[in-house]
């Protein structure tokens, strides 16, 4: 009888358990969330949010708190939409020592700073696959410069910057031999190196230049952040795989209990570089600059770089042990605390800069790593955040003494206090956040109002779109004690890190159109009367203009199969938001999208005779559909005379090389 009763009891217990429901994700959205994220039609967002595109290779711009997509800025990938990477003016931007590369993996972004605060001038972006750093101008939202990084691979800990944008860094995640040496992979320990490159930025032009590379033992520099205030002179890099595994890293690079935070004194490094302690080595790397005056990108192959070896430069580099393959490496707004997030650790170590410098002064070292002093863990430690969650990755700050860390495995954001390391709040994200972002959250002056978590897994968040889903982002209001989810929005590519700044820093200096009088493109047509068609051998240059609603010339004859035709199209408009497009049938280049006052060039190589219509691809006006023309292509060797014009094409004929 007792058995039966106990059996019945357990059945009842099981049944009641089944009737319990898992917590529904909907329940976390409370009351006034919608009104907090609502930006009324016609009203502006409070913040610009620049978001890395990951495998899209581009940068996207959102408004916060609405989550509205404002723009995709082409950076490391071709962008047929506006001809970036296809037009003659922009082709050189994607040039490398291995030729033009149409794609990259864009991970992190950093807004330029002055005195540790955002200044709204430039945005820097890294390319992870073929190591490069790009600079985007925030008056035009255009990529102005891309510099390739030699002696590196997997440019992940980049493009973080110092407080006055003195340097942008690029750190190696996939160690490689210097100088592209051909060595066995198994000789990793002897031959493979990681480098921390310091790229100087010109204060007025923004032009980048690799000032020096600090050569470090082969290991994976993962993320980085510059010091602030008291720690101004230092740059901190997290590193994993100090085991120096070169195969099955999943296991082999996760063996050690602790890896390191690498602290580089860049001020010292600068002095050593000046004092001639480095040595110059021959390398090749592309340096691509877009000249706004000539409206043309050029690519130069640079030939030399300065290497600094910590052996020759004492007190330049130190290692701080950090538990379990640290990922994020973040410095708080005061510059006193630096946080390493051991992605496989069950705690978050927080280091004190004061204790770190004291440990160096007192020589509290536990040994060295390839000659680089390793500071005792406890000597630099401020404390550990206990049981924060699972899989801590990245930390940002609100400027009110609190830190926010993403937990990849437990899929949540955890708020904790810097002073006593107490966990204050936690909210779920959907799902598995990578980076998080507080506007200005990695500067001296965070705007601690919102927090965005960029998630890696989306699953059921939006209407399904087949196997391939977008990535999700969630916006939290962090102005109160408790974090509150207020918006969930889809993103482009795979956002890693993002940056956000108050709209007021940028919006009023946004360029509305280019002054045509300052257009010094070699092939500009300053007015319809200056249009022309000129043949030189088999090269045909067409000086063309676009203005509502016609292209001049719009009839062109005397072009032959085998010719290289260059359409140099100048948009004569001088008004806001009147771009014109240009496309011609069967062209293998992409469309041109020409802003007012701009000149862009499409190269066209007709393969067959026939009539090729061309037209404006941007709905510019009420007569947009009429904005078209014809190119006649005759067989090779035909005697069709060169003829062009608009309105009365027969009236104008150009002599050869008349221009």
């Amino acid at each position: 009888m007792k058995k039966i009763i106990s059996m019945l009891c357990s059945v009842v217990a099981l049944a009641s358990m089944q009737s319990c429901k898992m917590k529904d994700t909907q329940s976390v959205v409370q009351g006034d969330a919608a009104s907090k994220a609502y930006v009324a039609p016609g009203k502006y967002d409070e913040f610009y949010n620049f978001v890395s595109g990951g495998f899209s290779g581009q940068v996207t711009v959102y408004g916060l708190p609405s989550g509205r997509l404002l723009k995709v800025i082409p950076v490391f990938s071709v962008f047929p939409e506006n001809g970036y990477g296809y037009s003659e003016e922009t082709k050189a931007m994607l040039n490398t020592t291995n030729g033009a590369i149409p794609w990259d993996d864009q991970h992190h972004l950093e807004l330029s700073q002055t005195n540790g605060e955002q200044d709204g001038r430039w945005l820097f972006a890294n390319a992870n696959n073929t190591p490069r750093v790009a600079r985007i101008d925030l008056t035009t939202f255009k990529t102005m410069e891309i510099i390739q990084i030699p002696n590196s691979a997997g440019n992940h800990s980049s493009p973080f910057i110092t407080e006055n944008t003195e340097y942008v860094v690029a750190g190696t995640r996939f160690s490689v031999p210097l100088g592209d040496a051909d060595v066995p992979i198994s000789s990793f320990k002897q031959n493979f190196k990681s480098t921390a490159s310091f790229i100087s930025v010109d204060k007025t032009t923004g032009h980048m230049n690799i000032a020096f590379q600090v050569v470090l033992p082969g290991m994976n520099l993962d993320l980085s952040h510059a010091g602030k205030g008291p720690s101004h002179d230092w740059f901190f890099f997290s590193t994993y795989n100090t085991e120096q595994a070169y195969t099955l890293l999943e296991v082999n690079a996760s063996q050690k209990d602790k890896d390191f935070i690498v602290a580089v004194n860049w001020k010292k490094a600068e002095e050593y570089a000046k004092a001639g302690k480095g040595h110059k080595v021959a390398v090749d790397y592309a340096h691509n600059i877009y000249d706004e005056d000539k409206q043309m990108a050029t690519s130069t192959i640079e030939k030399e770089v300065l290497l600094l070896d910590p052996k020759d430069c004492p007190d330049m580099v130190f290692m701080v042990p950090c538990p379990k393959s640290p990922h994020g490496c973040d410095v708080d707004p005061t510059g006193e605390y630096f946080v390493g997030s051991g992605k496989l650790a069950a705690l978050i170590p927080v280091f004190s800069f004061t204790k770190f410098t004291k440990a160096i002064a007192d020589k509290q070292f536990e040994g060295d790593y390839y000659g680089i002093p390793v500071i005792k863990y406890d000597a630099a430690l401020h404390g550990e955040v206990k049981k924060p969650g699972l899989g801590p990755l990245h930390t940002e700050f609100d400027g009110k003494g609190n830190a926010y860390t993403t937990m990849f495995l437990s899929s949540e954001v955890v708020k904790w206090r810097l002073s006593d390391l107490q966990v204050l709040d936690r909210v779920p994200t959907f799902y598995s956040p990578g980076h998080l972002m507080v506007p200005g959250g990695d500067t001296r002056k965070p705007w601690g109002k919102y927090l965005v978590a960029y998630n890696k897994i989306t699953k059921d968040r939006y209407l399904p779109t087949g196997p391939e889903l977008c990535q999700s982002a969630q916006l939290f209001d962090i102005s109160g004690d408790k974090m509150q989810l207020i918006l969930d929005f889809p993103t482009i590519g795979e956002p890693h890190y993002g940056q956000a700044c108050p709209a007021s820093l940028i919006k009023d200096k946004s360029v509305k159109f280019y002054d045509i009088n300052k257009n010094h493109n070699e092939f500009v047509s300053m007015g319809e009367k200056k249009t022309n068609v000129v043949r030189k051998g088999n090269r045909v240059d067409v000086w063309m203009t676009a203005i509502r609603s016609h292209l001049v010339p719009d009839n062109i004859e005397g072009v032959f199969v085998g010719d290289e035709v260059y359409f140099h199209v100048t948009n004569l408009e001088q008004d806001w938001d009147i771009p014109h497009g240009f496309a011609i049938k069967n062209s293998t280049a992409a469309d041109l999208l020409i802003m007012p006052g701009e000149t862009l060039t499409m190269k066209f190589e007709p393969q067959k005779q026939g009539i090729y219509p061309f037209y404006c691809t941007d709905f510019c006006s009420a007569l947009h559909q009429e904005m078209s023309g014809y190119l006649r292509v005759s067989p090779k060797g035909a005697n069709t005379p060169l003829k062009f014009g608009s309105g009365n094409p027969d009236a104008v004929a150009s002599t050869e090389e008349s221009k």
Partner: protein
Amino acid sequence: MKKLTLAGRVSIAVVVLFLATLWYMPMWQIDLRAPQYPGGLSMKIWINDIKGDVDIINGLNHYIGMKTIHKKDFAEFVFLPTTMLVFMALGIVVFILNRKLVYYLWTGLFMLIALFSFYDFYKWEYNYGHNLDPHAPIQVPGMSYQPPLFGYKKMLNFEALSQPDIAGWFYIAAGIILVGISIYEYKKMVKK
């Protein structure tokens, strides 16, 4: 011949001063607004120039076949300043002669110039709005695009508002002073 009162003599200086503003500020403005131009477009007419978003307006007007506006096409920009300068110089003469009758004549001249100017402005607006290119891409039967001489008018997708600008208000004020003082002087004379 009766002499001018003190108020009359002072008014001459004020009128000349008010008219001098024509060289420093626009006298008339025509504001245009359309859905595509949320910030609006504005044309500022000066005594000797036309400024503002003229290029943009010229670009738009070719759709409906309106002529483009160019400074050099306006003889008014030469004769209007000349006329006003002569008028202002005559003010000095009126001041020196110090006679009521001359003041009345001066006021009359002003009214004559003002009337002619408005007639000329209206005529230009009429031609601008009616003389359309017969080959214009957009032709609305019976539609003309004459801007309002004064006030508000809607034309296709554009709303137009025409009104005096700062110097224009000074000009109007000068006219009011001239007429007012003339009446004042006349009443004084009658009383005596």
